[in-house]
């Protein structure tokens, strides 16, 4: 693990600003590892918060709802496009009294309101929370936003503290965990005091704040669990099976909206930052907002810069400015283009030193290049694609490319067998 400098210290002071609504929204149909099937047709009139698409077949991706009222104007395999009528006609939803919530009802709410892991992967939260109540040892709230530049979780913890605690109180009532822990990076230790002030409103809630080093990728789920509980659980396993419920603070906020306001996940907080933009800060945006709209509203000139959706370590390059903000997008980053020249690997071992999964990343480049047996021999399937290895590499080796493509090759080899 390692420290990465960025502009967090600037954006974390910013409040959560609002953005003007767009006239067209593009609702993403890809989520987690699945594709949602549209439940509407072109030309349909849509109410705000109405369900637009669902993973009918597998139930392995969270439902998605309309952020505005208006009309469906196009549907393709990736997006449903909506025209905003600016009327904000809402669908009516029923709010369940929190006293009446039991696990089963709660999980149903998560499902109906499209709650998904907001930290990036968009893993459906209802699946994550499907546990036996009695088995929950720890409820772990992940406030470790280890991605450089991003402060959206920070902003949520700073400005929506009361909402988070109310939701945590409900979770406490449902799961009766032995302990509740909120993890925060040391660089944000002022949040600890801030939280402790709010604890006074919840005398029955025992929450511990755990400060962790400012290292990347401390916020990775496996790394976070280990740092707090000392339990090392292997990649690919479900934390709940070990008695840990882990949620990102953004997800907790989404649960709040569902439980207390009856609003499905249709917006989130993102950080806009990077070295190629002046209007950096935290913004509340609707899911499906085209990136073009955000750039226009903030007067950002995106000519000749690299645009990244998500964090700089694990995010994706934006090729199409009409692509939208998704549930898992924590940021929109703009970087000046930089030339990286690839040199020979000098076997410095830095990649080995920083790999949180204790792998030997340079072997994957060799494996992808010539000897595919190395991929399985050096446990490529345990890689969490955090990008730490490529960040640190002095020779700029294409480690992530080898890893991503190498995993595809690994899959093919498995099929062949």
């Amino acid at each position, binding site marked *: 693990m390692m420290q990465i400098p960025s502009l967090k210290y600037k954006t974390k002071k910013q409040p959560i600003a609002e953005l003007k609504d767009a006239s067209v929204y593009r609702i993403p149909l890809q989520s987690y590892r699945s594709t949602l099937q549209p439940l509407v047709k072109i030309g349909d009139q849509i109410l705000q918060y109405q369900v637009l698409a669902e993973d009918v077949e597998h139930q392995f991706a969270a439902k998605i709802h309309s952020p505005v009222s208006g009309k469906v104007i196009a549907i393709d395999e990736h997006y449903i496009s909506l025209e905003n009528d600016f009327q904000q006609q809402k669908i009516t939803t029923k709010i369940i009294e929190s006293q009446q919530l039991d696990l089963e009802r709660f999980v149903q709410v998560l499902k109906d309101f499209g709650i998904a892991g907001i930290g990036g992967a968009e893993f459906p939260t209802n699946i994550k929370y499907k546990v036996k109540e009695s088995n929950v040892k720890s409820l772990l709230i992940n406030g470790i936003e280890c991605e450089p530049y991003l402060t959206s979780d920070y902003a949520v913890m700073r400005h929506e503290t009361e909402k988070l605690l109310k939701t945590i109180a409900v979770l406490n009532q449902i799961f009766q965990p032995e302990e509740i822990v909120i993890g925060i990076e040391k660089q944000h230790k002022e949040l600890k005091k801030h939280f402790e002030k709010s604890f006074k409103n919840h005398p029955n809630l025992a929450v511990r704040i755990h400060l962790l080093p400012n290292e990347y990728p401390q916020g990775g789920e496996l790394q976070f669990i280990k740092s707090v509980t000392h339990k090392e659980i292997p990649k690919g396993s479900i934390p709940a099976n070990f008695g840990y419920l882990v949620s990102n603070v953004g997800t907790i906020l989404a649960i709040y909206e569902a439980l207390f306001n009856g609003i499905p996940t249709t917006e989130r907080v993102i950080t806009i930052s990077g070295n190629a933009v002046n209007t950096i800060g935290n913004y509340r945006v609707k899911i499906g907002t085209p990136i073009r709209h955000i750039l226009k509203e903030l007067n950002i000139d995106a000519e000749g810069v690299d645009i990244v959706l998500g964090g700089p370590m694990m995010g994706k390059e934006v090729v199409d400015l009409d692509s939208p903000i998704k549930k898992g997008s924590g940021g929109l980053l703009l970087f000046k283009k930089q030339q990286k020249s690839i040199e020979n690997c000098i076997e410095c071992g830095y990649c080995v030193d920083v790999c949180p999964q204790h792998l030997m990343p340079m072997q994957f480049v060799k494996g992808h290049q010539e000897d595919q047996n190395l991929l399985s021999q050096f446990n490529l399937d345990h890689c969490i694609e955090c990008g730490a290895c490529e960040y640190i590499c*002095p020779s700029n080796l294409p480690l992530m490319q080898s890893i991503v493509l190498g995993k595809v090759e690994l899959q093919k080899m498995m099929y062949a067998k």
Partner: protein
Amino acid sequence: MQNKRFSPFVSSKNSIGKVMLDVIIALLPLCAFAFYTYRIWFLIVLGSALGGAILTEILFSGILLKKWRGILDGSAIITVLLLVFTISPLTPWYVAAFGGSCAVLFGKILWGGVGKNKFNPALVGREFMTVFFPLVMSSGDIWSTKRIRYVYEVEWFDFIPNAHWAEFLNELFFVPTGALGEYSAVFLLLGGIYLIFRRRISWHIPAFLLVSFLSFLWIFEDQNLNYSLGGILLGGIFMATDMPSSPSSPTGKSYYGLMIGLVAGLCIQFGAGFEYMSYSILILNGFSTKINQVFMPRTWGTKTDWPKKIEEVFLLTLSVLTVTFAVLSLHYYGYIPYLIYIYIIYIIFKFNFSFSKKLHQPI
């Protein structure tokens, strides 16, 4: 369509040049000591080795392979410095130039360039010198350097009343015997600490190497063992830690250091003479890849299969010892040159049929 870009979109400010620069910085005080002691003699040796190396780089990397950029990354300078640090100030200039040139060509370029070498280039260069100029390199004369010395001892600590302590400290800082890089134990150590601090090497290799070597000496308690502290420090801190030819995981590095210390002890014990450091490091260089496999770090969330691991380590150690004794026998009968001839044939063959096709690949 444009190629898909992969994350991450930020990167550290690390570069090969910066890594090399730090090593050069760590080596500079040693240069100063060598110059202080032998002045022009040191400059002649260094200059000719550097000249040989750079000429070779320009001719082979540049003109033949069209890889001009690599010439300036500093790796050749480090190779030459390390090579010069293992030889005598009386080494004739043409031998030094030959050594510098062979170190770069057979130690690096023919492997496919910086980072791809399996053996420490400086030591490869040194072996070439020994094999092709046996009379010069192993004559006793070359080490009788008294007459050209400018400084015989220092009196920096003579202000200390206790004469023993004063002498001890003086010698820790400066002893003008042996090869050009061995004069100042303190600055060898300081260079190592600097590199560890800058994370250019990790402490595992030098620490375990010293521990095992010193324990070996202690166990065998032979007063006649001929070794130099400076030589061990130079080898342990700067040679054995050469990135491409040493293992990458912490446990692998520890094992590697331990074994170099042990093999170096054996080499001294069984009469390898001045070559104990070169032999031990080169032998373990040869096992680096295997060590990386056996001592791969324990992947997150998995368990180590101890019986299997112990068996692997046992077999590995057995092979290292076998090779050591084979090399020592060859040394005893004077057959080391044939080993070098085989190496030359092997590397040229490999370059022709394999490495030259992968020049553009980064690994």
